[in-house]
């Protein structure tokens, strides 16, 4: 199901306005004292920009009767009460995408990772224009109800900062259109190396096995999931796999060789499908637009302007920017593991069998060593190391075996209760 171009454009316009309008406000909130502002606007103009942005945003929401079947009020579970606190616990979202899904935007944090649900309550993230519009409408009602507008206008209010409200909306919603996501995935695929299916019989067999598992996993998904999953077999033999936006899965060849554990392969592929269904990479791009561009830009300006004044301030700021991305990817990995557990729970409805299979998966993740347990927090972070990390664009880091194992063991009973 692809979005109609006009609606996509309209949503993109909102998203672009959110991104552009908020970029100038970002450094003001994240930079340490002494950090040069990355934007050109003075604080007053930021406020006035935010006000005009909010006005425009609210006008769009008022003009939303055209989001009929997907209106937030159609879904009693997620309809916001006018006086509800913005920080209230979100109600349980519907489990299937064949109903409109309203994403509650209720967490207030300076990083983008808060929108992740570590338990994978929703196996498929909202993706339709109706879902996004309904979520926006829900947020709009909350903004009006909370008095955020009064605060923006300079009147006393205990509500959250409206700028944060809008930025959170841009983080929380999936505003990158589906067709763009598919295009992005196809574009990235051109840089990947994978085996031609007709190379030889063994490769053809590996493709067949991979497609069979993919088809089997897809049986458990709602019928209206818009992704047309494709699988490609890589030449490498590292027991690894990866996902690109739009439903492209790349799998290492050894996963399909003699002696490989079929449950482990199933788990690995379910993990990758989950990255796609959670729109992780797509949302990472969104988050980088919101959190990253101006933060990295702010860092560069800080380095340029400070010279020899305060190296510690630069290091602190650099670490903050780095951790923003590292934590983000680690949490995504844990969430994808949790989602994969739900797939496994569907395959093994028997609790004991499921527990046994997941333990087997955990054992194949690698050993937990004392050195590794210490490393995450005790390794010194030097400024050259952090800067190299940022300039290389290497934001990805996987949680260590201990964290993954803990997450899987803790989540097993919940996965069993939820299924797919």
């Amino acid at each position, binding site marked *: 199901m692809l979005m109609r171009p006009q609606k996509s454009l309209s949503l993109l316009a909102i998203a672009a306005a959110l991104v552009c309008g908020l970029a100038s406000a970002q450094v003001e909130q994240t930079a340490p004292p002494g950090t040069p502002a990355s934007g050109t606007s003075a604080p007053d103009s930021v406020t006035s920009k935010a006000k005009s942005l909010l006005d425009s945003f609210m006008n769009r929401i008022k003009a939303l009767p055209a989001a009929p079947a997907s209106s937030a009020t159609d879904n009693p579970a997620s309809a916001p009460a006018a006086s509800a606190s913005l920080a209230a616990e979100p109600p349980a979202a519907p489990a299937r995408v064949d109903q409109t899904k309203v994403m509650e935007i209720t967490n207030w944090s300076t990083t983008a990772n808060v929108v992740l649900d570590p338990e994978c309550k929703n196996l498929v993230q909202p993706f339709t224009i109706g879902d996004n519009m309904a979520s926006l409408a829900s947020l709009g009602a909350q903004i009006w109800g909370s008095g955020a507008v009064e605060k923006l206008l300079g009147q006393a209010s205990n509500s959250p900062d409206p700028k944060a409200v809008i930025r959170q909306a841009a983080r929380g919603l999936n505003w990158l259109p589906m067709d763009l996501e598919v295009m992005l995935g196809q*574009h*990235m695929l*051109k*840089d*990947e*190396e994978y085996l*031609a299916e007709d190379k*030889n019989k063994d490769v053809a067999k590996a493709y067949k096995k991979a497609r069979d598992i993919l088809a089997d996993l897809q049986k458990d998904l709602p019928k209206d999931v818009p992704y047309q999953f494709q699988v490609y077999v890589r*030449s*490498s*033999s*590292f*027991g*690894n*796999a*990866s*996902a*690109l*936006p739009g439903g*492209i899965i*790349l799998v290492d*060849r*050894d996963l399909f*060789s*003699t*002696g490989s554990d079929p449950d482990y392969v199933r788990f*690995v592929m379910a*993990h*990758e499908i989950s*990255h796609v269904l959670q729109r*992780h*990479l797509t949302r990472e791009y969104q988050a980088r637009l919101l959190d990253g561009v101006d933060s990295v830009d702010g860092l560069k300006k800080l380095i340029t302007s400070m010279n020899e004044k305060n190296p510690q301030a630069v290091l602190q700021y650099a670490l903050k920017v780095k951790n923003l991305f590292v934590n983000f*990817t680690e949490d*995504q*990995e844990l969430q*994808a593991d949790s989602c994969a557990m739900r797939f496994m729970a569907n395959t093994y409805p028997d609790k004991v069998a499921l527990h046994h299979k997941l333990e087997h998966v955990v054992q194949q*993740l*690698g*050993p937990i*060593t004392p*050195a*590794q347990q*210490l*490393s*995450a927090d005790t*390794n010194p972070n030097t400024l050259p190391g952090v800067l190299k990390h940022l300039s290389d664009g290497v934001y*990805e*880091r*996987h949680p*260590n*075996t201990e964290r993954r194992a803990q997450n899987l063991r803790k989540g097993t009973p919940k996965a069993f209760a939820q299924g797919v």
Partner: protein
Amino acid sequence: MKKQALLGISTLLLTGLVSAQNCTLPANASGNSKSSENTKTLELRDQIGKSPACATLPGITPKKLSVVWAAFLNGNRTGGQRFDTVPPAGTPTGKVLPSAQGVEFDLRAVQAEGLSMLTLRSGQNVIASFSPLTQAIVQVPTQQLKPEVAYDWVLVTRSATYKGRFELPAADDLKDLKQQLDAVSAAESDPKARLFFQAAVLDEAEFYGARDKLLAQLRELTP
């Protein structure tokens, strides 16, 4: 007499077939999203199309060469979200070509992480274990390994765990491969074109790790 005539005909046919082989890389051979070609790589591309080494590779096609060309230009670039951290380039994967010392683990790329342990297994049997791991280059003697058996290794550093699987080829396959590599060497004197065609031989025989090593050398010669 008849035998000689038949041999003559088959030689002619073979020569005809060989000379019909095409090693011209198509214009969009790299297939990647960015234009990674420069003057030097374009020169190499022309050289490949004219190389006498082309005749030594039976069954080679522009499509197969394009795959190797794309691997040369793209390097080990991977994107997306992976299940696990990607192991360093010097670790064995898939079918490996052992050196005289054995199967090599070149761990220099992750040495700064703090090497901790390397274990090699075949099924449940531990074949070799290095703990504490003090060397950045580890050789596992071939005497400890059997051909056509899958070996799983796990490398632990202070930051991450890396895994992989490799196997040694059968003796006959290794002999054939060496013959083909020698034939390329004899036919092509230019080091860059020679490296490319040898990489193509390794790609066809599915020695991807060895192929990537040659392509890395080729990249150094074609900056």
